[in-house]
């Protein structure tokens, strides 16, 4: 299958946006005060030592050359050395990903698993008690900060009941499913719940509205007229067609998921990417900040491009319009 012109244009657009984003990040970090060589060697370093290190890091080269070198490095997986940890940034990010990725995945699964059935249930019982409760949950869930939910969860389930650890992360051990695996998962459960609740609230609202929209369409009436039970019409025809806005919203929520992860990791002292970025900022380890922010921005851009493409694929009406 040859890619259609519209798909090529979309891809080119996404690539261009990523390029502009990387340039913005690079220039902002460049403009930030602080000499990397001085941060690495300390303020008591000799002038010639500093100069040698600057030379070694390539800090004397022109701005554009350094930008291109950084981009080339990012593509080949060489993001430079952390100023404070003294290890490659790429390795640092990969290590922290082992916390953030499972955390955000668990939160998303949890949010979808709760919100889709809840939203469908609310729509099916429009105006009745179940609908009212779901709506209240949605309103509350959107309004509460996830880091506050995290603190409350710690208070109840870690400090009072002692079911989960207060914070920290034991690591995955040998990545087996033994005690180490369970220890790691149980350290992620409360943070995942805290991260999931606001997401679930937004998705419940969207699911409910989408199901109600689709249920009012002619083909559902036709399906019912042909003798399909209300239940079958709902799950076979209405829900599948209502999932498109839910998927879109899931994509649009990624920036909030990332922001949320930074906060929740902080509350639970999890050594994830968010904590890495935040600590790097306070230690002025700007090369880490630069790469982590690019990674997050790239994820948002990629998910958005992906959602757009999916949308065009799933909704033939959009294709016809292009």
């Amino acid at each position, binding site marked *: 299958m040859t890619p259609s012109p519209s798909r090529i244009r979309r891809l080119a*657009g*996404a690539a*261009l*946006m990523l390029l*502009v*984003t990387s340039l*913005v*990040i690079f220039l*902002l*970090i460049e*403009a*930030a*005060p602080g000499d990397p060589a001085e941060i690495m060697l300390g303020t008591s370093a000799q002038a010639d030592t500093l100069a040698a290190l600057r030379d070694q890091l390539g800090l004397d080269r022109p701005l554009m050359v350094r930008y291109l070198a950084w981009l080339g490095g990012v593509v080949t997986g060489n993001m430079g050395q952390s100023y404070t940890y003294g290890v490659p940034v790429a390795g640092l990010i990969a290590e922290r990903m082992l916390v953030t990725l499972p955390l955000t995945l668990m939160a998303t699964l949890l949010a979808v698993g709760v919100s889709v059935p809840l939203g469908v249930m609310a729509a099916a019982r429009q105006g009745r008690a179940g609908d009212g409760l779901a*709506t209240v949950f949605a*309103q*509350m869930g*959107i*309004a*509460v*900060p996830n*880091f*506050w939910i995290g*603190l*409350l969860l*710690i*208070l109840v389930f870690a*400090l009072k009941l002692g079911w989960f650890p207060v914070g920290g992360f034991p690591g995955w051990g040998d990545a087996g499913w033994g005690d180490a695996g369970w220890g790691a998962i149980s350290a992620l459960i409360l943070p995942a719940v805290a991260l999931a609740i606001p997401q679930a609230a937004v998705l419940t*609202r*969207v699911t*409910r*509205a989408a199901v*109600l*929209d689709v249920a009012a369409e002619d083909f559902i009436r036709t399906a019912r007229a042909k003798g399909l039970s209300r239940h079958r019409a709902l799950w076979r025809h209405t829900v599948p067609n209502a999932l498109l*806005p839910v998927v879109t919203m899931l994509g649009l929520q990624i*920036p*909030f998921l*990332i*922001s949320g992860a*930074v*906060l929740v990791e*902080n*509350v639970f002292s999890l050594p994830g990417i968010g904590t890495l*970025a*935040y600590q790097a*900022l*306070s230690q*002025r380890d*700007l090369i880490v*900040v630069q790469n982590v*922010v690019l990674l*997050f*921005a*790239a994820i*948002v*851009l990629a998910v*958005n491009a992906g959602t757009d493409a999916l949308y065009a694929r799933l909704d033939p009406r959009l294709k016809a319009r292009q």
Partner: protein
Amino acid sequence: MRLPKSLILGAAITAIMVGAAVLSRVWTPADPTAMNIVARLQAPDAAHWFGTDPIGRDVLSIIMAGAWTSLGIAMLATAIGGAAGTLLGVTAAARGGRAERLVMGFNGVLFAFPPILSAILLGALMGPGAVTAITAIGVFMVPVFARISRAAAIQIWARDYISAARMAGKNDIRITAEHVLPNILPQIIVQLAIQTGLAILSEAGLSFLGMGVSPPTPSWGRMLSESQTYLAAAPHLVLAPGLAIAVTVLGLNLLGDGLRDLTDPRRGQAG
């Protein structure tokens, strides 16, 4: 005409919170900066409705003073981001073609910077503070308002009275100012309420991480961050600021929903 329930409730909550913020400029139950080590970490009672903090300050007074900070930063960020975004959106709708694609591409780039990421970047550049917080939150508002105002403006541009205005010799700028903006204003106002709520959440998050206003300026997010140490000993320190945030955001969301029901009853609960 009957007003939607959510509008009344939302407006009442918002009025109370804004009222508390304004009142805190002239009066609080106690001096929010007055320390009293003897009366530290007291649970809520008649003298201190929300209890006292680790250095004996009255929590209710700090919450009230914090309302000024949180609402002020959130409203400024939303107003600036909303104005810039709306301007971009109506321009895109009016010009179409390359200008429109450029605006949408620019939007895509801004959307890749959630407030916390911008704050981390800007924090590297100019350190934490109110300006960093307002910029970080405002930047993310631009694509939100641009998308909404563009979609709304495109619908207006398709109306017959626009063709009439064109035939009367009005240019794009006049048509946008006289016909498009007034007609999309209700949708923008709804978004202003809802986005101010989100901005409050962002501001709280930034302060929680120490990237918001610096001490001694009170802020709800920093109160929560400071409460972490005393989670078991003084749970009231966690509850009060969190509730303040949640109630304010809830009020603004209800206000936004209510305004939407009022201006566009067909959409009702949707999205």
